[in-house]
């Protein structure tokens, strides 16, 4: 059903990503920002900080807090979503914060907070990976010192086959989804979630594929940042 002649319903090969477009530095007020289109996903990410964490009792005297907020616009899905956080977005905000904190030199900014805002404007499967990928570019655009630029991508299993970067339909009808985020230089795993049904062998295969996907996207991230700096120099 979801695969035909070795191709997927949208014509992609099993190891092929959807179309991705990344633009850095698109907002005026934010310290760093990124607009990302990934298949049908449209994501805006902004970074504010490092700035003083308030109220004071949340401050950590040894390092900066990394506080990501993943939010879906009410019109970003087919059935209108009530504004405000739900349980799903609370969980995604948490694992996203943790993944991003890993690469940031937070100990350089004691008592500070680094706020990462991820707004999903249009959603079509894989928004958490798209959000992390965009947030990473926004962090770099904001000049936040990081040991690497994180990047995220999912692999999954569809009609018994391990494939890269699921669409909505594949996510819903497929057998498994494995979103990960990595630090691409070292291939360390910053985020991993999985739901579905994978044998150990399939898991290994999917993990390898997702890492391959991450590395392709990491290039697009760097190109977007490069382009921003170039346009900055031209000005």
């Amino acid at each position: 059903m979801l695969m035909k002649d070795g191709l997927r319903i949208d014509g992609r090969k099993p190891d092929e990503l959807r179309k991705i477009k990344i633009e850095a530095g698109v907002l005026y007020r934010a310290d760093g920002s990124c607009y990302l289109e990934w298949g049908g996903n449209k994501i805006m990410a902004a970074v504010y900080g490092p700035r003083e964490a308030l109220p004071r009792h949340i401050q950590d005297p040894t390092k900066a807090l990394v506080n990501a907020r993943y939010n879906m616009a009410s019109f970003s899905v087919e059935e209108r979503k009530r504004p405000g956080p739900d349980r799903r977005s609370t969980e995604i905000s948490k694992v996203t914060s943790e993944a991003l904190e890993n690469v940031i030199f937070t100990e350089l900014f004691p008592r500070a907070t680094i706020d990462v805002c991820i707004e999903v404007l249009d959603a079509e499967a894989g928004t958490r990976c798209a959000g992390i990928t965009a947030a990473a570019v926004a962090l770099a655009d904001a000049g936040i010192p990081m040991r690497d630029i994180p990047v995220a991508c999912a692999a999954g299993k569809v009609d018994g086959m391990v494939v890269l970067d699921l669409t909505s339909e594949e996510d819903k009808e497929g057998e498994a989804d494995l979103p990960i985020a990595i630090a691409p230089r070292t291939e360390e795993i910053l985020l991993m979630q999985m739901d579905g049904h994978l044998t150990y062998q399939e898991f290994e295969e999917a993990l390898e594929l997702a890492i391959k996907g991450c590395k392709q996207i990491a290039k697009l991230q760097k190109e977007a940042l490069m382009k921003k700096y170039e346009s900055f120099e031209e000005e």
Partner: protein
Amino acid sequence: MDISEIGRLSSVRRDYLARLAKEGKRPDGRGFDEYRPIKIEKNVLRNAEGSARVKIGNTMVLAGIKLEVGEPYPDTPEKGAMSTSAELPPLASPEFEPGPPKPGAIELARVVDRGIRESEYIDLEKLCIEPGEKVWIVFIDLHVLDYDGNLFDASSLAASAALQNAIIPNERYELGENEPLPVRKPPISCTFVKYSDAIVVDPCLDEEEIAEARFTVALDENGNIRAIQKGLSGSFTIDEIKNNIKRAQFHARNIRKLLEEENGKKDKES
């Protein structure tokens, strides 16, 4: 300051803006009666029934339209309903905080709503599916992406543009084929602020931060008045109010033209 209720400008900067105003100048070099560049992009989203992204200078607002089937109000059993919300997410400004809408966001949504409602922009009579039972409810969601002043006009324009390209999602509800949302002529909103005895149109953030009074008027295609909102603790004289409305009539004509051009473009493309 209105929306964020924080972040006062330094008094040095405040004095500088006041001095500029006395010389008839504004911080970004505009005249008192000059809008920043306006950019309207329509149909920018896939899941929304209608959408538009409007930039006025650095201010950027995204409007998304969703339609749902629901019950009509008991006193209008044969009319559809509309509901307008505004989100001021922390993405758009260092002063915006997460959480339920603050008074500033509620005022913004309600003023945009009144302009659309009172100009009868959406033809709610045509949104009845089953009298007394089922009607279409039009949700207008305003999502501020970048805040550099004048959210009222940017939001109103984004809502107007998004409604122009919205469809009724009949197919999703198995009610036949999708069709365009029936709309009439949009309202155009014009906002002024007063500071240091100057009254300027389309305030940027610096100006909003020292503004004493704000005046927003929504005009229909005949230049008639459909909604007014005076804001902030400063006052206007009667003559200032009258003058604001006349100035707004001029600006509204220009903005309306812009919106129609954008509409024409869309029609040609499709």
